[in-house]
């Protein structure tokens, strides 16, 4: 049996010997992250899959609006060597044409993750036959909602009726506040719980 530190060392060795990794991060004994160039992602994922990281746990994206980039995060998992690996890469943030080659040939399950990313960030995945289909949002009629320049409040205000609170709800019939009484009662019950002392 190998312990988990060995796993991390093994991975470090495996990936860094073959790839030009921009940054390797060892988060803890069960998590590692590799930032790679976008051209290396497919070969790196192939290598990881053949080395036992055969489960794609998640594909997510991050919108770095100031740097004008999207970051894609592939998380893969191995059931024999318990290490989650994040493969991170950055692509150009292009609202209309941002795209990244699909990884379906490597991980077929990526089909749905890529659809989700397309829905929420507008990144296209050529090679995935239905990346453009809706998956989670139904009949969405605006820009992808997880982009940083999307304004959820404006969308909510324009689509969903808000409840009005007429002033009388705030101070009903000019009653005086019962806050003090309530506090006294709470104090008393506290005292009783302590045996009435102090």
């Amino acid at each position, binding site marked *: 049996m190998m312990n988990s530190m060995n796993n991390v060392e093994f991975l470090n060795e495996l990936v860094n010997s073959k790839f030009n990794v921009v940054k390797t991060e060892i988060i803890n004994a069960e998590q590692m992250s590799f930032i790679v160039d976008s051209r290396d992602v497919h070969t790196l994922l192939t290598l990881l899959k053949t080395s036992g990281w055969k489960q794609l746990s998640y594909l997510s994206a991050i919108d770095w609006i100031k740097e004008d980039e999207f970051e894609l995060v592939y998380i893969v998992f191995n059931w024999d060597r318990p290490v989650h690996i994040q493969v991170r890469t950055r692509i150009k943030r292009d609202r209309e044409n941002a795209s990244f080659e699909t990884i379906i040939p490597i991980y077929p399950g990526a089909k749905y993750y890529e659809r989700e990313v397309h829905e929420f960030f507008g990144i296209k995945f050529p090679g995935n036959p239905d990346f453009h289909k809706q998956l989670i949002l*139904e*009949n969405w009629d605006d820009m992808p909602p997880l982009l940083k320049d999307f304004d959820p409040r404006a969308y909510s205000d324009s689509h*969903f*009726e*808000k409840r009005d609170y007429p002033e009388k709800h705030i101070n009903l019939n000019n009653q005086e506040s019962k806050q003090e009484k309530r506090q006294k009662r709470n104090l008393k019950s506290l005292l009783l719980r302590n045996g009435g002392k102090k």
Partner: protein
Amino acid sequence: MKSTKFSPMTQEQIDKKWWEIGNYFRRNSLWMLMYCTGCCAIELPPAMTSAYDMERLGMGPMATPRQADVLLVTGYLSLKTLRRLIYTYEQMSEPKYVVGFGSCTINGGIYHDSHAVINKLDQYIPVDVYVAGCMPNTEAVMNGFTDLMGMIKNKTARGWLDYKERNDWYKKNQLDSLGEVLVHDEFHE
């Protein structure tokens, strides 16, 4: 021959009596359909199990909408869930009641500015009782149920009648927010 003791009742009065009898049994034996959309649903296990034991009020869980009397909407509703909720509500047999849990169903709660969830449930389906809180205390939930029973007794739980009377208004609101109520997705077609 006319009876001297009892004046005969009109059909309307007889119907009303039967409704009263029906309401008596209905409010003491409510079957609820739990549409556990949000975190408020976590208040149901203590309410149903030995801690508060809602069966002593005569309430029990039911598996299908057609056999249930009360629809519990426990928490926030995304547009996607709202579509399914409207389906479910319309499938329930009358009379039907709706209990909305938590501030999310009342005014959107902490998700009031989210792109994904609606703010005001009674805009789309009629709600008889709201239980406020985020999440509501289990006592408040139980209190909401007894309130509902009282409302059935006083004939003020009229949401389902309202849905029939103002159906156009509800339908219009549903369409305004949802675009289309029908569900189209590849998994069901």
